[in-house]
C-alpha cells in the first residue's frame, strides 16, 4: 500500500495499473480453460425428482445436452426413474424411439403427462435408429429422447455419434442398453445401471464424467409407488415375522395358490 502510494505520488505520469480482476469474473468467461474437471462448469440440468439421485449427480440433476446411458435388463422402472424429469421438461416433445412395448395412455395420463407431447417412433434397424436418434437429439424442439437400442450391437463409434448429436442439442437424450454392455467402454458422459429390487428401484451411477471414481459405486435405492407393494397373501402372513420385528422381503413365490375358483 505504501509502495503503491509512493509510485502514484512520485511517478504521476505512469498510467494506472489495471484494476484487480476477481476470480469470479474470470470464471464467467467462456474461453477460460478450467482443466478436466467439470465440477465447476455450469451445465444445464433438470431435476430428477429424486433427492438422493440429485445428490449423486454432478449437476444436481439429469444433464441436458449430454448423453445418458442406462444399462438394464428388460423393463426396470424406467418410467419411475425419468417421469419427474419428463414432466419438468415442459414444453418440448418427448420422443420414444423403439420402445419395448406400447406406452399405455391411461398410466401416462394418471402420471400427469400431456399426451400431445409424446411421440413414438419405430425404427426398423440400427442405421435408421441412429439416424433418428441423432436428428432428434440435434433438434431444439425435442425435450427428451428415450431410445431403446435395437437388437444389433452398438459400436463405440456409434454411441459416440449419439453423444456428439446430443451435445449439439439442449434436450435430455437417454439411451437404454442391455445390462451386458455395462462392462464395455462407452463415451457416454453419464452411465447408470438400474434394476428393480424388493425395496425399490436400485440405481448405480458407475460412470460420471468430471467425477473421480475412487471407490466402488454405491447403489441408490429409489422408492417405488407404495400401491405396487400390495399385501402378502393370508397364508403367508402366518409365516412372516411380527411387524415389530424387522420386515422380511417379499413373501415366497412358491406357495401361491392359483387353484381354480368355481
Amino acid at each position, binding site marked *: 500500500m505504501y509502495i503503491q502510494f509512493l509510485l502514484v505520488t512520485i511517478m504521476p505520469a505512469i498510467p494506472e495499473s489495471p484494476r484487480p480482476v476477481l476470480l469470479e469474473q474470470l470464471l464467467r468467461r467462456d474461453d477460460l480453460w478450467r482443466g478436466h474437471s467439470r465440477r465447476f462448469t455450469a451445465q444445464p440440468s433438470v431435476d430428477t425428482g429424486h433427492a438422493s439421485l440429485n445428490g449423486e449427480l454432478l449437476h444436481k440433476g439429469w444433464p441436458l445436452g449430454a448423453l445418458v446411458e442406462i444399462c438394464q435388463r428388460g423393463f426396470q422402472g424406467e418410467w419411475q426413474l425419468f417421469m419427474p424429469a419428463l414432466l419438468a421438461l415442459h414444453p418440448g416433445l418427448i420422443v420414444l424411439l423403439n420402445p419395448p412395448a406400447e406406452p399405455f395412455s391411461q398410466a401416462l*395420463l394418471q402420471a400427469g403427462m400431456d399426451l400431445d407431447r409424446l411421440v413414438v417412433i419405430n425404427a426398423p434397424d440400427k442405421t435408421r435408429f441412429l439416424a433418428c436418434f441423432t436428428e432428434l437429439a440435434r433438434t431444439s424442439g425435442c425435450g427428451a429422447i428415450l431410445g431403446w437400442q435395437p437388437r444389433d450391437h452398438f459400436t463405440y463409434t456409434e454411441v459416440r455419434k449419439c453423444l456428439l448429436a446430443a451435445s449439439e442439442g439442449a434436450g435430455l437424450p437417454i439411451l437404454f442398453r442391455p445390462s451386458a454392455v455395462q462392462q464395455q467402454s462407452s463415451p457416454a458422459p453419464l452411465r447408470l445401471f438400474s434394476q428393480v429390487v424388493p425395496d425399490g428401484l436400485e440405481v448405480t451411477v458407475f460412470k460420471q464424467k468430471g467425477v473421480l471414481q475412487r471407490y466402488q459405486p454405491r447403489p441408490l435405492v429409489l422408492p417405488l409407488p407404495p400401491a*405396487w407393494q400390495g399385501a402378502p397373501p393370508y397364508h403367508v402372513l402366518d409365516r412372516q415375522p411380527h411387524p415389530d420385528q424387522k420386515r422380511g422381503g417379499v413373501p415366497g413365490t412358491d406357495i401361491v395358490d392359483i387353484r381354480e375358483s368355481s
Partner: protein
Amino acid sequence: MNARRDRLWLALRFRDLPLSALDAAESPEEPLVVAEKRKVVFSNPRARAGGVVDGMDLTTAQLVSGCRALARNAAREEEALHRLRDALYRFTPHIDIYRSRRAPHAGLLLEISTCLRLFSGVKNLGDTLLAFLEPRGHDLRWGLAHSSTGAWLLSFARHEITGEETRRLFTDRLDRLPVQVLYDYPGAVEALVKMGFATLGDVARQIRSRSMDSLTRRLGKEFTGMIADIYDIESDFTQPSLFARPVTTYVPDQPFCESIEFDYPVSEVEHLRPAIESLLQSLAEFLQRRQLACQHIQWRLAGIHDRREALDIHSDTPQSDWRLLFDLTLIQFDHTPLSFEVDCLTLACGDRMPRRDSSLDLDFEGKRRRGGCPRELAVTLARLKARVGDAAIYKISYRDSPLPELSHTILALAEKCAQQLPHSHRHGLRPAWLFAEPQPIEKRGRRLYWQGYLTPAVGPERVAGHWWRESVARDYYLARRQDNVAVWIYRDLYSRAWYVHGVFS
C-alpha cells in the same frame, strides 16, 4: 332507398338434370328413365311418348315403354349444379342453388338487378345468358320475378323475357299459378284446395285482406312465410329493409396452379430449388391474401418427351407460410430423385382451409422460447417420416372403452389426443407399458410363470363389458415376478387362462 324492392331474380330450372348429370350415352330413339327408389324421377321424350310419367313405378314404366333405367346420382347432380354456377358467375356474382324438397327439381337463382346496366337491360341479359347455355343442351325453363321463390314458381309457366316486366306484371303472373305449384307443401296444398283456394292469387288476396295471421294459424308459419317471400310481402316492421335477407354473393373456388417452364431441361434437384422457392412464395402470397392455409400441395413435373410425374407433399399442420413447405419438398425430392429431365414445374394446391389464428397466452417465463422452433421440429419429423415411413411415427391417445387394449389408440401427429380419463380409470393401477397382444402365462404346477415365477400381489380389479361385440370378463392383478418386476396380469373368467397385459415400470 329500399334495396329489396329493386331486386330482380332469374330462375333457371334444369328439367333434365337427373339424366344430364349422369353423362350416360343417350340416343333420341331410345326410351330412357332415371329412377330413385324404384320410382321414375325423369323420363326422356321417347319414354314419355311411350306412356311413362314422373313418379311412376319403375317396373310399370319398363313394361309400358320398354325403357332403359338409370339410377339417380344426387352427388353428380350437385356437382353439375356447381359447374353451372361456376359458368354463370360471368353474368352475376349473386347465385343460389335451389333444390326442391320433394320433387327432383333443381336449378339456379340469379339476382340480376346489379348487372342490368352491364348487359344493357334484362332482355339482352336474358338472351345472352340463354344463348350461353344453349350449347350445353339442357332442357331449360326460366322464370323472372321480383322474388327468388316467385321466379322459381314462374319457371313452371312459360313467359318470354321482353324487358317490359314490372313488379305488377310479376304479381299478376304469380296470381294465375295454381296452388298445386307449391308441391313442396302437399299438406298445405290439400288444405288450400279444401278451403276453396285454386290459385296463388286467391291466397295472396286472403293475406292482403285479412292479414297473414289467419293463414299462419291454419297452415303454419313456414308456409305463410314462403307465400310472403313469393309476393315479397313485408311484415309490419318500421324499417323492413333492416330485416331483409341479404343476397348471397357467390365466390367461386379458385385453385392455385402455377407453372415455371425452364429454358433448358433440368436434371438436378439442386437446379429446381429457385423455381420451387418462387412457386411456394407465390402460393404463400395467394393463401395469405385469402386468409387460407393448406396441408397438401402437389408438384407436377413434365419432361420434354411428354413424361409426367407428381409428387405430393403433406404437412401435419395447416401452413400459410412457404418455408416449411419448401423444406418438406426438398426432403421429398432428396428421397425421390428426378427420373427424367424436367422441362416444366407446376405447383398445384387444391385442398385449402380457412386459416385459424389461435390466440396464445402471454409467455412470461419464456416457456415457448425454450420449446424450440416448431418449424425445425416439423422439418425433423418430416425427414424422419421420409426415412422410416408415416406409419412408424405416431402419438398415443385415450379412447373411452372398458377394455384396456381398446381404450388405447394411436393417432397421426396432426391429430389431437383425448386426455380426459373417466373416474373409473383415474385411480386404478395401470402399467406404463401395455402389450398389444396379451402374453399367455404358463402354469407350472400351482405357480404362474412368465419369464420368471409370478406372485399376484394387488387385486383383483374386475374388468367386464363389451358384450355388444364379444363379452369380456377379466380379473386384473399386479403381480411380482421373481426378479421383482411388477407386471399386470389377468385371468380370463371365461377361458380361465392367465395372461400378462403390461409391465409396471
